[in-house]
């Protein structure tokens, strides 16, 4: 490699560093508490399970025919557990799970969607400083304050648009639509479309 670098032209020297060979696909064994249903497609990269720390059983369960595309990451804390129902599609979804995130059947989550069941730090500034100290590189993580979590449920057939963010404790009803870029802080009733930050029901005149 050193030889080729020496031989590189000036133009090549400006180019970004290529990823190491085999950087994209991760062919290592899945964690033993991950269950994959028949007919699933899991486009796994080194990032997909880089922050997967679940000690639950199951820690992650994919129903039959679930499709997980590149860009999806399962960031699951020790007490966390993620369940994805049959036929759901994850086009590049960031899961941040400390307790429970459950997706029903045929849920569609588009690119850059984030789903989290925890704020990951306390709102109280004193407690938050304690947390900041505990999570420092050489801090003592056992001294982290208790984190507030609230499960997220996304019911059958709900669709989550590009870049939307679903926050803790939210239930998204069957067949609901979350528009691109929405930040969902409260429950969405079945078959309702929400949009914006914070997400509010969208009336038909706003769109189209």
């Amino acid at each position: 490699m050193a030889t080729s670098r020496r031989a590189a032209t000036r133009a090549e020297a400006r180019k970004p560093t290529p990823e190491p060979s085999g950087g994209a696909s991760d062919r290592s064994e899945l964690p033993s508490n991950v269950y994959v249903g028949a007919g699933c497609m899991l486009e796994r990269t080194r990032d997909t399970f880089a922050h997967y720390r679940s000690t639950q059983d199951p820690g992650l369960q994919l129903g039959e025919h679930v499709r997980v595309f590149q860009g999806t990451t399962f960031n699951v804390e020790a007490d966390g557990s993620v369940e994805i129902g049959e036929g759901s599609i994850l086009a590049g979804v960031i899961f941040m799970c400390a307790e429970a995130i459950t997706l029903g059947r045929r849920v569609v989550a588009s690119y850059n969607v984030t789903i989290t069941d925890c704020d990951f730090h306390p709102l109280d500034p004193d407690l938050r400083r304690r947390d900041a100290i505990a999570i420092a590189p050489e801090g003592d993580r056992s001294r982290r304050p208790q984190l507030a979590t609230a499960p997220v449920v996304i019911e059958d057939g709900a669709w989550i648009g590009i870049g939307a963010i679903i926050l803790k404790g939210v239930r998204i009803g069957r067949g609901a639509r979350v528009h691109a870029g929405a930040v969902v802080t409260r429950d969405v009733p079945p078959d309702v479309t929400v949009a914006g930050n914070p997400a509010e029901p969208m009336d038909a005149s706003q769109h189209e």
Partner: protein
Amino acid sequence: MTLLAHDWYPAEVPPNVTLGERSWLHSSFAFVHHRSERDPSVRIGPDCGLYKGTYFDLGPQGQVEIGKCCTVNGATFSSNDRIVIGDYALIAYGVVIAGSAFAVPPDARAAMGEDSRLLEHQREVRIGDDAWIGSRAVVLGGSTVGNGAAVGAAAVIDGEVPDYAIAAGNPARIVGWARPSHPA
């Protein structure tokens, strides 16, 4: 049939993709979900930089045309229709330009069966010369971003941004104007 000399991903660039003179593409991994049968499916002009995190998730009828001297610093193009980008456009990291708000890679669309018909309001997207699209912004099917227009970070564009307008927010609104200081 091109192999990029610097590529870490062991795949060829699809034969219906053309890359202009002096243009740089980070990796053929950009085409991992490329299913376009159009010819050309992706046409990139000269002096363009397409960097890490850029993906062309194009369905059978999907097509992307990029002019000259554009920078695409990690954006996803997901459509089964045309996406046309002018010259000197700057597209920031995490941007998604998609036919539909619920876009998914073409293989998933195929697997959705009946449901995927609801995604079929796929329409053309046009982005003008000198346009600037901020980080994590979303530009949806049927939208036009005018020449010299700027789109703020995380804005959602579902309509028309006029030439030289600055659009931001969700839903995006025009928040200002930036006209050329040296008109041609």
